[in-house]
């Protein structure tokens, strides 16, 4: 028997308010984001569905293969949810990992009325299973579009330690809407990969400020690459998810054509900008160089004023 441990019990809502989304595990993010006690996991760790490929490389497995999927309630309405564990293999997509998300998306497509939250925390494809990971991502992209076509709202939440890189960035670009926080990053190639391939003059991967200006949450929000900026708390992301669920519309050809215009406009307006600060200045922000230091609430107000969202064009 354990010696009794006295600790003050924090209500879940209080914990959600004070827990950093970035620092929390995938399981904690789900536990605190959804309505208390509502989460039911599918193929959880007790099922021991580990990667069949890691033992070739003598790499330890994780029982849930680094992704937690299931169903719960958000503000009393059912949602499907998938959360990647960014600290296991960098949250990267492997065969089993990807398949769990695909199954969830296919169920959502059939049910039509239950939204799906994807809590991205990934470096992209898991190299040890590169072909299976890449294929899983391609299947996920297809499954997201089929679900959206059936009327499902697919919301991406980005704020984990591994960011949303590689194929994860492409899946994010297929979502109905995205919320991102200050620590979140969205890109295709990672900073080190760009530096290795193109040299440090092209991109100094150790310049953290540069990485965040180029790929980080604030820039993505101002660029319109993400729709809502969230404070780095689980409550912040819960609120962002609810906000986006209330805003997202149906997917159709009009939306795709609007996105073509949105992206072409972006290229035309900012295609010769050297740095994010130049883009923010061009968007009409005075003292753009102060953006990185701006606290979340002030930044959110500023971003909403600028008005660049991808609503109806994603």
């Amino acid at each position: 028997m354990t010696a009794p441990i006295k600790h003050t019990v924090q209500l879940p809502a209080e914990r959600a308010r004070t827990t950093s989304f970035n620092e929390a595990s995938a399981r904690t993010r789900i536990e605190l984001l959804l309505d208390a006690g509502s989460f039911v996991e599918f193929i959880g760790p007790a099922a021991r569905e580990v990667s069949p490929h890691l033992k070739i490389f003598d790499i330890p497995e994780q029982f849930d293969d680094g992704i937690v999927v299931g169903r719960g309630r958000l503000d009393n309405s059912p949602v499907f949810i998938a959360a990647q564990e960014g600290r296991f293999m960098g949250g990267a997509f492997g065969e089993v990992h990807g398949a769990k998300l695909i199954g969830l998306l296919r169920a959502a497509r059939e049910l039509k009325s239950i939204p799906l939250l994807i809590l991205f925390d990934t470096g992209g494809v898991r190299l040890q299973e590169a072909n299976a990971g890449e294929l899983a991502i391609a299947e996920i992209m297809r499954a997201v579009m089929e679900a959206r076509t059936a009327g499902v709202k697919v919301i991406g939440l980005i704020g984990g330690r591994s960011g949303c890189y590689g194929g994860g960035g492409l899946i994010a670009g297929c979502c109905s809407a995205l919320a991102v926080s200050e620590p979140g990053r969205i890109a295709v190639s990672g900073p080190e990969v760009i530096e290795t391939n193109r040299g440090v003059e092209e991109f100094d991967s150790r310049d953290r400020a540069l990485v965040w200006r180029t790929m980080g949450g604030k820039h993505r929000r101002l660029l319109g690459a993400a729709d809502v900026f969230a404070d780095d708390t689980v409550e912040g992301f819960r609120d962002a998810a609810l906000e986006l669920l209330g805003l997202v519309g149906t997917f159709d050809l009009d939306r795709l054509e609007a996105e073509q215009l949105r992206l072409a406009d972006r290229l035309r307006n900012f295609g010769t900008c050297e740095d994010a600060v130049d883009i923010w200045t061009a968007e009409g922000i005075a003292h753009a160089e102060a953006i990185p230091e701006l606290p979340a609430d002030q930044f959110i107000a500023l971003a909403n004023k600028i008005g660049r969202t991808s609503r109806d064009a994603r």
Partner: protein
Amino acid sequence: MEDLSFQHRVRERADGTRRTAIIGVVASGNLEVLVERILPDAECQLEIKTAAVGFGEVWTAVIADFVERYSPGGLKFSINDGGARPDTVSLRLAQAVRLIEEDGQ
């Protein structure tokens, strides 16, 4: 990778009625512990897959200590270890027991 296995007889069963709990993440210097209430009350079992080879004696000592302190009767612990230090292992085992003794399922 190395597989290790331990069985212990203990004084009493772990509290509570929860059937499973999970804690931790598999990463360098970290580990995950899956605990399941599936054994007879006086028994305890630990199955370990570890990336750090050759530390059998350290595991033996850490586990003997843990079992003596917490008497986790009825529990099977399945561990995937990314090479955690002994104090991290002890912490996760204690967290696992605390979780499965919590109210709820």
